[in-house]
C-alpha cells in the first residue's frame, strides 16, 4: 500500500474560471477582437436575431460565430446560410453552460482575424449567467411569450447583461406583455442595462441594436 500524503489546497472552484475569463479578455483586447456572449432561453430568438444583426453589421465588420446551443450543427448551418459568415459548432456534450476554458478552446479553432465574434450560448437563463465566458460584453434576449416578469425570476441573468433585447414585440398584445413594466424590472436589477425592443422576424429595432454593438466595439478597441 502506497502512502497517501494530504496537500492542503483551499482554492475556490469558481475562481479558476474567473482567472481564465480575465486572461481571455486580455488576449482579446490585445488582438482587438470583440467577443459578445449572447444568452437566452431556448427559442427566444438568438439564431434569428443573429442572422438579422450580422447582415447589418457585416457591411463594415468582419464577423465569426461560435454556436454552443446545443450539440447539433443546425444553428451553425442556419447562420452560414443566412449570412455567409463563418460559424463553428462547439461540442459541449449536452452541457448547460459554457465556461471560459471552453470558450477559449472554441476561439482557438477560429482564425482571429475578425473584428467581432458572437457566441451563441446554451439556451438557459440560470447557469450561463454564473459562468464568465471571458466575453467583452454580455447580451441577452428576452422574448415576449416568456412574460414580462422574467427579470424577477432570473435576476442574475439581468444583472450580468449590459444589453437586453426584447424580442418578438410583434406578439405583445397576445401575451399581455407590458414593455414599460419589463423595463422597470430590468432597471431595478441592473441600472446599467440598455434595453432594445426588437422583432427579429421583420427586422424592427435591429438597426438600433446593431449600432449599439458598433459603439461597444469602438470603445473596446480604444
Amino acid at each position: 500500500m502506497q502512502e497517501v500524503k494530504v496537500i492542503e489546497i483551499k482554492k475556490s472552484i469558481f475562481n479558476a474560471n474567473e482567472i481564465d475569463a480575465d486572461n481571455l479578455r486580455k488576449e482579446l483586447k490585445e488582438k482587438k477582437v470583440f467577443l459578445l456572449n449572447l444568452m437566452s432561453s431556448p427559442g427566444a430568438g438568438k439564431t434569428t436575431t443573429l442572422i438579422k444583426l450580422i447582415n447589418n453589421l457585416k457591411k463594415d465588420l468582419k464577423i465569426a460565430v461560435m454556436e454552443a446551443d446545443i450539440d447539433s450543427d443546425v444553428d451553425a448551418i442556419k447562420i452560414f446560410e443566412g449570412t455567409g459568415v463563418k460559424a463553428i459548432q462547439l461540442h459541449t456534450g449536452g452541457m448547460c453552460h459554457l465556461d471560459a476554458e471552453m470558450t477559449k478552446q472554441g476561439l482557438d479553432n477560429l482564425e482571429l482575424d475578425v473584428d467581432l465574434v458572437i457566441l451563441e450560448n446554451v439556451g438557459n437563463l440560470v447557469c450561463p449567467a454564473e459562468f464568465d465566458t471571458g466575453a467583452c460584453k454580455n447580451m441577452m434576449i428576452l422574448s415576449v411569450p416568456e412574460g414580462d416578469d422574467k427579470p424577477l425570476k432570473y435576476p442574475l441573468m439581468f444583472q450580468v447583461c449590459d444589453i437586453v433585447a426584447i424580442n418578438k414585440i410583434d406578439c405583445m398584445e397576445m401575451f399581455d406583455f407590458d414593455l414599460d413594466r419589463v423595463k422597470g424590472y430590468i432597471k431595478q436589477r441592473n441600472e446599467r442595462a440598455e434595453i432594445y425592443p426588437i422583432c427579429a422576424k421583420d427586422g424592427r429595432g435591429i438597426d438600433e441594436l446593431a449600432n449599439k454593438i458598433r459603439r461597444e466595439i469602438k470603445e473596446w478597441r480604444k
Partner: protein
Amino acid sequence: MHELGIVFSIIKQVDGIAKKNNASSVKEVTLEIGEVSGIVPKYLTDCWKWAVDNRSEYMKGCELKIIPIKAKSFCESCEQSYDTVTYGKICPYCKSEKTYLLVGKDATIKNIGVTGI
C-alpha cells in the same frame, strides 16, 4: 449537465497541482460545497467516476469527498445571523430586508491526497 463542467474544471486544477508536486497519482479529493453555490453534490458524485477515469492524467479511480457548508445570512438591522435556505432574503427576527449572505455561496477544493511524494 451543470456539474460535469465543474468536474472538468476541478480535474484540470487538481491534475495541475499533482504535476507541480511530482505526485504519481491522486487518490482522493475533498471539496467544501456551499449550500447555495448552485452545485448539487449528488450530481457531482454521479459524473465524478466517469470523468476522473476518462479525462484526467493523475486521478484514475480517485475518490471524492464532499463536506457540505450550510448557508448563513446576516441582518444589518438587528445584527443577527440566520439560516439562508429556510428564510431567504428576509430576516426571521426583525423582518428586515437589509441582509446579506455570509457563507454558502462558494465551493472550494479543500485538500487532495496524493501518492509518490
